[in-house]
């Protein structure tokens, strides 16, 4: 919402400075977004007289002008086609900064002729795009006067943000009223004097709504004018409209725009000659009807929209935009004025459906002053008669003013209870009254019955009244009180389950993975790689683009896309992870907290130690196991299965499970997936369902289990078994561990060998078994005995044999 300082002062009698006004606006909830003092940038430019303009001796298109600036006569070389002897223009002296071009003017010589400054166009001053020639001013423009002052551009422009509840401040007067309440002057009276009509309106209103839906347009007021002259509007009105960004069109249109900007009251004027049948009917549109709007576009209407039309058809979209057919033009002499209330919700729906934004819609959908149809008509009448002349009819009214009067109880004590500051009773009442509220005493002391004014539809209860008092009294005046601590020492802010998230992030980062945060959506085409076509319920109805149209079923896709982008930047080797949500369905349970990571390319950059190798599934498995260990999962009980989802390499991937509960999957990504992301590979990844990792059982206290250290030397024994290729190493390890659960403390796999000497389809797996005695040193016989058990167990479990 923009307005100029002088416009504001039309409503506010104040001696406050611009700075004071600006500061106060922000502090009462009308946030100042900008203040533009256009005169500052235009200060150097003055009105000058072109004494003579002669052809440049050496350039066809240039003229050499003698310019009288009011203080001296200077020579200026000018290229504008309209530069001529005797004209008045705007002079920019040497040393001035030309805002439209950003150039600092220097004294120069153009084709041998000295030039001291320039005569400027509107574009060069940043006023418009006009650059066909230099600015021409009337002959009576005072020589030497600052151009900004002459053109009315020395009026600071204030731009404020209006929150959706403050429809009343979508007119300058509402802003002035708030400032007055805040003590920055007094609100000047508004001239709402009535004009009597001299004839009966030849056009009447009809409302034609289905029963029960009359609230779509509770009231409409109209008035007919004849013998008007629709020329240009007065300069002061044009200047104000231009200042706030509206293009002056004609007196009648400008008057409607001015009343809207000044008082927040949108109006519409029809060319009464063009209305057929002597009526304007307000009704719901019929499906299939179309409408040619003033903006030259055609819109398809439906039965939810309110329209106005005559015998010819629809020619106004209520509260949104007028029609082309009945619009006023320069030749208009008869006018029909419309001042109505429409259902804000219908106006909003209509505008949104048609994608039609207008200043009128903006105001209608936020709610107008419920009494405005009458006073709006009166003010518009005065302006039309003053500016366009002619005569007006009696008003024609259809419907009744809505019941807007309502009252709320305000307990003065409530201001301190909620606001933390005791505002004096008298001051509280003064604030409300200055804002237009009616305040009546009740039988209870300190309790009032407050009726909001008709322009404050946003006030719906006591809390709103408290806010009105507080914001005008000033939030700065609320004393700061520390939030009392409920306990003297801070308590944990996160639960043990929540604590896993930062733990997982920091563990993975400590292992060398870089944390990424990617979008929760992804392209549905890519999402299909991770579990098949995305169901409709997981696709956005209004995505920004097809790249962001599906909720991600896995984080892997976004990490692979990131790997591909980094590869394009020259970084093909990377390790990335993200801890975040993935989505299986739209219910809260369908959202899983995941820790997902990838490693791509080689494990390290090329380097002298020759340590680097391509990443493989065991890198991912290593990340996963470290993570599970850190999260307190019972890693010793985890089983590996080879049924990872189909976005992994079928032979180089697995799942980690606890019984039927799949905690995670890991492995090399499927070449088909890598191809879809244009990745050369190899890429390995893991996906851990954080919520499926069982929480350690709640226990009393923080004591760790008792640690019993054996004083006896552990013994290590190696075994190699020849088994079928299909036997999993884990089977051998488990069998060895199970052979003597007391003595066997550790089993490691230290060699895998396959060779012709073992036979087709066979491999040798070498394990190292650590035996940890607890009560005595092991004898050779003891070791022999347990070794025998280990061999027997492994052979039984795997069908293999000890390699001799």
């Amino acid at each position, binding site marked *: 919402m923009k307005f100029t300082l002088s416009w504001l002062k039309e409503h506010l009698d104040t001696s406050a400075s611009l700075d004071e006004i600006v500061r106060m606006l922000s502090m009462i909830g009308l946030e100042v977004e900008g203040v533009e003092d256009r005169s500052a940038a235009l200060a150097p430019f003055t009105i000058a007289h072109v004494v003579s303009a002669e052809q440049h001796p050496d350039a066809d298109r240039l003229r050499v002008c003698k310019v009288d600036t009011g203080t001296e006569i200077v020579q200026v070389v000018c290229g504008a086609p309209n530069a001529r002897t005797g004209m008045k223009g705007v002079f920019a002296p040497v040393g001035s900064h030309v805002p439209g071009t950003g150039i600092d003017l220097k004294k120069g010589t153009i084709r041998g002729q000295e030039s001291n400054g320039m005569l400027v166009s509107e574009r060069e001053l940043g006023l418009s795009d006009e650059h066909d020639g230099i600015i021409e001013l009337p002959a009576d423009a005072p020589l030497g006067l600052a151009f900004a002052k002459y053109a009315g551009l020395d009026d600071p422009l204030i731009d404020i943000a209006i929150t*959706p509840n403050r429809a009343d401040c979508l007119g300058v007067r509402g802003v002035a009223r708030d400032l007055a309440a805040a003590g920055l002057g007094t609100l000047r009276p508004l001239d709402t004097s009535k004009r009597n009509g001299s004839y009966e309106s030849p056009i009447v209103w009809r409302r034609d709504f289905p029963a029960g839906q009359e609230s779509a347009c509770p009231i409409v007021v109209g008035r007919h004018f004849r013998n008007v002259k629709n020329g240009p509007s007065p300069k002061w009105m044009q200047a104000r409209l231009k200042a706030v960004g509206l293009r002056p069109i004609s007196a009648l249109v400008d008057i409607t725009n001015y009343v809207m900007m000044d008082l927040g009251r949108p109006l519409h004027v029809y060319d009464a000659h063009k209305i057929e049948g002597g009526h304007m009917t307000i009704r719901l549109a019929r499906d299939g009807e179309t409408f040619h709007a003033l903006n030259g576009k055609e819109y398809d209407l439906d039965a939810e929209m309110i329209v106005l039309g005559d015998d010819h058809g629809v020619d106004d979209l209520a509260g949104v935009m007028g029609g082309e057919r009945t619009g006023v033009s320069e030749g208009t002499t008869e006018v029909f004025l419309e001042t109505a209330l429409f259902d804000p919700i219908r106006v909003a729906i209509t505008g949104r459906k048609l994608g039609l934004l207008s200043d009128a819609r903006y105001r209608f959908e936020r709610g107008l002053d419920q009494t405005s149809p009458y006073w709006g008509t009166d003010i518009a009448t005065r302006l039309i008669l003053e500016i366009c002349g002619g005569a007006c009819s009696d008003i024609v009214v259809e419907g009744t003013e809505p019941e807007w009067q309502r009252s709320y109880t305000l307990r003065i004590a409530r201001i301190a209870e909620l606001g933390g500051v005791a505002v004096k009773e008298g001051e509280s009442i003064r604030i409300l009254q200055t804002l237009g509220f009616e305040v009546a005493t009740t039988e209870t002391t300190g309790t009032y019955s407050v009726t909001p004014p008709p322009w404050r539809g946003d006030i719906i209860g006591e809390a709103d009244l408290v806010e009105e008092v507080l914001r005008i009294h000033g939030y700065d005046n609320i004393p700061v009180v520390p939030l009392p601590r*409920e*306990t003297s020492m801070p*308590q944990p802010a996160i639960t043990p389950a929540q604590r896993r998230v930062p733990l997982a992030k*920091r563990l993975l980062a400590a292992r060398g*993975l*870089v*944390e990424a945060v990617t979008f929760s*959506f992804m392209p549905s085409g890519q999402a299909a790689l991770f579990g098949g076509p995305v169901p409709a319920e997981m696709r956005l109805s209004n995505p920004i683009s097809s790249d962001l149209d599906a909720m991600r079923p896995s984080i892997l896709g976004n990490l692979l896309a990131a790997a591909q982008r980094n590869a394009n930047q020259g970084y093909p080797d990377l390790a990335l992870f993200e801890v975040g949500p993935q989505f299986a369905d739209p219910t809260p349970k369908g959202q899983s907290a995941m820790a997902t990571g990838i490693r791509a390319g080689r494990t390290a950059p090329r380097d002298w130690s020759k340590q680097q190798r391509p990443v493989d599934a065991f890198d991912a498995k290593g990340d996963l196991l470290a993570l599970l260990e850190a999260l307190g999962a019972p890693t010793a009980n985890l089983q590996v299965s080879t049924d990872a989802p189909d976005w992994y390499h079928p032979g180089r991937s697995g799942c980690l499970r606890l019984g039927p509960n799949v905690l995670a999957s890991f492995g090399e990504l499927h070449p088909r997936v890598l191809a879809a992301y244009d990745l050369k590979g190899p890429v390995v990844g893991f996906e851990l369902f954080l919520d499926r990792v069982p929480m350690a059982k709640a226990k009393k206290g923080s004591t760790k289990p008792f640690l019993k250290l054996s004083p006896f030397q552990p013994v290590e024994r190696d075994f190699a078994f020849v088994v079928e290729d299909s036997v999993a190493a884990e089977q051998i390890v488990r069998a060895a561990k199970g052979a003597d659960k007391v003595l066997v403390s550790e089993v490691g796999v230290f060699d895998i060998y396959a060779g012709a000497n073992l036979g087709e389809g066979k491999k040798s797996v070498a394990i190292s078994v650590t035996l940890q005695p607890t009560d005595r040193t092991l004898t050779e016989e003891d070791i022999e005995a347990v070794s025998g058990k280990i061999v027997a167990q492994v052979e039984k479990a795997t069908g293999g044999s000890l390699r001799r």
Partner: protein
Amino acid sequence: MQDLNQLRDELLAEVQGAGDLEALDRTRVAALGKKGRITELMKQLGALDGEARKEAGQALNRVKDAVAEALDQRKAGLADVALNTRLAAERIDVSLPPRPEGRGVIHPISQVLDELVAIFGEMGFSVAEGPDIEDDFHNFGALNIPPEHPARQEHDTFYLPDRADGAKMVLRTHTSPVQIRTMQKTTPPIRIIAPGRTYRSDHDATHSPMFHQVEGLVIDEKTHMGHLKGCLIEFCRAFFGVDDLPVRFRPSYFPFTEPSAEVDIGCTRKGGELTIGAGDDWLEILGSGMVHPRVLENCGIDSTKYQGFAFGMGIERIAMLKYGIPDLRTFYDSDLRWLKHYGFVPLDVPTLTGGLAR
């Protein structure tokens, strides 16, 4: 005696003359070995008697000790030389880089999240969570934003297909629905923050379709706007690490709070560079207000008994301000160079006692 002195000198000279450990060992054997010269003399002592044997024995032992000591010294000397020679040959180029290790980092959003938890945790808040895919009621209706409310249009909501029961499904446009979910299942007093992902259908230089917010909610029987100011001033000063940071509260509007306030912090913008702290300008960083009585009632909380405040802010925004990150969009690009530049050392967990700024 003469002979012994001579023997001693001869043997000591041999020890000194031994050029390496092997030669030294030969010298030892020749002197002290089973058939060594001193050993041989020891054997002859038995032929002497009484006093003479004692004297000769002592003299011979002195020679033996002197030789043995010389042998030890020489051995140590030779071992040193041998070690030094070997070490000299084992020289490596220590200017080579160490073996490469991956350097992982924590994303600024996670780091700031931990900072928020540290600060608000100290003030007695605990962390609450809710789903990213919300229904219309939790995201809008319960928060006093009816369907055609202009405030709703400002949310640029992403929609999913309607649920079977007709409920509109949305990606939550703010973290405020977590307020609702918390109040629905908790009896006051309530003191929570709810950080999380939020979504708006807007994508340009200063807007991302996904971003993060943190929501705060305090509900009890006596918390008023003075507490709101106290809590948020403490937060701003702790988070930005500026003890005298000016904090300004301006009236504003949110459908779910009444009265509402926007919060600005002091800054300067000299020479195009933004500095947070006491200055001549203000920077808006968060929205807040007293929870609207209707919102309390929507959650089954008696608004005549309970009251309190709520606030919400953008995590990326405060991260950008604190750590001087210029562009919002880069947070989600996963560009390694960016992540390593703006990321944090994983073991550097922010705490109030250990410091919040990095």
